[in-house]
């Protein structure tokens, strides 16, 4: 079993430069190495031959819908499930047969799994006591940890006397107190309301940077993944579809699945009519014209491809813009005012609906749009991406 999936390392530079992130350095040693991991439950393959390298101090997000296998992968890292085949190496040590209680890994559970019969301080102390740390040491480290998550004053409370956000922080403190090399977080912000989530996201990043622990986060929330992570692995049906930095996953999705899963996107189906190293032209009946993209692709001539275009990259106007390419016409069908931006749904003559978002720069929009307006949609030649799969 030597056929490992190559990890996408764009502009990989061989020079060990401290400014270049580890995953872009070719000779960097991964901290967590997942090699051809497969997990089957009976006939069902939950995780299908995944290989993945995660480096020290990374905050890696596994992003996927339910049933994508992300939680199974996380549980295999923690040792609660054993892989059907493949290897997991943490800091160079093979984890095969290493029981959960012996792994240098701690996990923060989605349900937080706080022990209801123990106080907050005893919950945090649980792991240290199992290590056989001295009473004095336990007390000191628990106090440190609780102070870090700003719960120093609530040590004597029981979990049921805390709010959701406080419980989440206790769970975090409990999973960090043993100073694990690797922290696994299962939907860490899932149970929090929107405002608390946003605050906690940044808190998590601060803690991660402060302690230098490698985080692996499982989430179904793309916003959470975008904000938190150094890199994202997008999962679907047990495989990792794309591994990249948040910016690249968003701007350069490698497939329709990723493009549609992360953010919203307009997809135009079309046929490649001109294929040059530096640009392609795609004839799209859906868009009602030829689309020009300023990057080359590897494809067969006349292949059917999809052009992905993010709603915020489209300009909307009443007057024909002075560009000949990438300009189509349509009728506004729906408008949603969302405060910071407005969303338009524009119907093209082909019947295709295009989603356009415009930031509301000024209090009174420069150009007023209303229902049934005939508008031009245009975008730059480097705004769209051609997807072959």
């Amino acid at each position, binding site marked *: 079993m030597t056929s490992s999936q190559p990890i996408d390392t764009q502009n990989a530079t061989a020079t060990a430069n401290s400014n270049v992130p580890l995953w872009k350095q070719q000779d960097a040693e991964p901290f967590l190495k997942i090699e051809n991991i497969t997990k089957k439950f009976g006939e069902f393959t939950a995780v299908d031959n995944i290989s993945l390298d995660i480096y020290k101090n990374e905050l890696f997000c596994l992003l996927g819908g339910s049933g994508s296998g992300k939680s199974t992968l996380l549980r295999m890292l*923690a*040792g*609660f499930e054993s892989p059907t085949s493949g290897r997991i190496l943490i800091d160079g040590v093979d984890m095969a047969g290493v*029981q*959960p*209680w*012996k792994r240098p*890994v*701690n*996990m923060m*559970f*989605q*349900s937080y*799994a*706080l*022990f*209801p*019969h123990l106080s907050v301080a005893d919950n945090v102390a*649980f*792991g240290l006591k*199992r*290590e056989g740390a001295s009473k004095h040491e336990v007390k000191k480290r628990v106090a440190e940890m609780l102070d870090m998550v700003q719960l120093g004053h609530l040590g004597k409370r*029981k*979990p*049921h*006397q805390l709010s959701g956000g406080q419980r989440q922080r206790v769970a975090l403190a*409990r*999973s960090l107190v*043993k100073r694990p090399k690797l922290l696994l977080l299962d939907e860490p912000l899932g149970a929090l309301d929107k405002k608390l989530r946003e605050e906690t996201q940044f808190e998590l990043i601060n803690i991660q940077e402060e302690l230098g622990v490698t985080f692996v986060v499982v989430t179904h929330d793309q916003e959470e993944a975008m904000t938190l992570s150094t890199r994202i692995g997008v999962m679907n049906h047990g495989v990792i579809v794309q591994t990249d930095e948040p910016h690249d996953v968003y701007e350069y999705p490698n497939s329709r699945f990723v493009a549609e899963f992360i953010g919203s996107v307009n997809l135009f189906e079309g046929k490649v009519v001109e294929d040059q190293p530096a640009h392609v032209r795609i004839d799209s009946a859906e868009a009602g014209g030829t689309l020009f993209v300023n990057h080359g692709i590897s494809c067969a001539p006349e292949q059917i491809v999809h052009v992905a275009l993010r709603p915020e990259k489209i300009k909307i106007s009443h007057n024909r813009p002075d560009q000949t390419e990438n300009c189509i016409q349509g009728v506004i069908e729906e408008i949603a005012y969302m405060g910071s931006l407005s969303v338009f749904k524009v119907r093209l003559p082909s019947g295709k609906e295009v989603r356009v978002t415009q930031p509301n720069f000024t209090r009174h929009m420069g150009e007023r749009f209303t229902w049934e307006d005939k508008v031009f949609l245009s975008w730059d030649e480097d705004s769209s991406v051609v997807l072959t799969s």
Partner: protein
Amino acid sequence: MQRKSLFLRFSAGFGFLFLYAPIIALIIYSFNKSKLVTVWGGWSLKWYSELFQNDQIIDAALLSLKIAFISATVAVVLGTMAGYVLSRFGPFRGKMIFSGWITAPLVMPEVITGLSLLLLFVALEGMFGWPSGRGTGTIIIAHVTFCMAYVAVIVQARLSSMDETLEEAAMDLGAKPSSLFFLVTLPLIAPAIISGWLLSFTLSLDDLVIASFVSGPGNSTLPMVIFSKVRLGVTPEVNALATIMIAIVAIGVIAAMFQMRRQARLLAKLD
């Protein structure tokens, strides 16, 4: 407040009357002065003092308490183990048979349980010379057998409703399965174990049929003594004894109820 319909009030009243009228009659008659059980002769505590001078009854009561205590304790240990296996061991060969077999004593007529145990004890004695004769020991074994089934069912139900990630979290934090059970699982299923113990204690104290089969001479439990006395004609002493037992059981049940409710509230808040 919504007014309850007349029918519901009537149902509730009738239910209470049906359940408690005999008990109230018994309690009142235990304070009867008359020697005749069915004739009211005024208030008195005389039967209580007579009761405490009746060695046969006192001995039987002490024996019953001893048997109930030991069998409840042993049943709790074995039943907890069985319940734990049923809910945590995952699928294994013969699980269906095991779970069916565990709960069989719940539905089996007591006469059959008693008879089969008697036959077993006799056969064992014939083959191995143990248990030599029947007495306290065999009663305890018999009671453990059927009490354990109740405990297993209660513990299994509690474990199934418990969040399994709590156990995973404990393992993740470095607890080996052996210490994990005592540190996390046991404290969380404690209410089930306590109620299992109380139920076993009551069942054992209550049992007449099985004990009659497996007891030997000179090892009569309290229900056996009462039953034999009643056959010869009820004395008011039995009423007094019954009243004391009802008082003890009532206190136990109320205490258990408070404990359960406190625990339930604690868990409800957590969810």
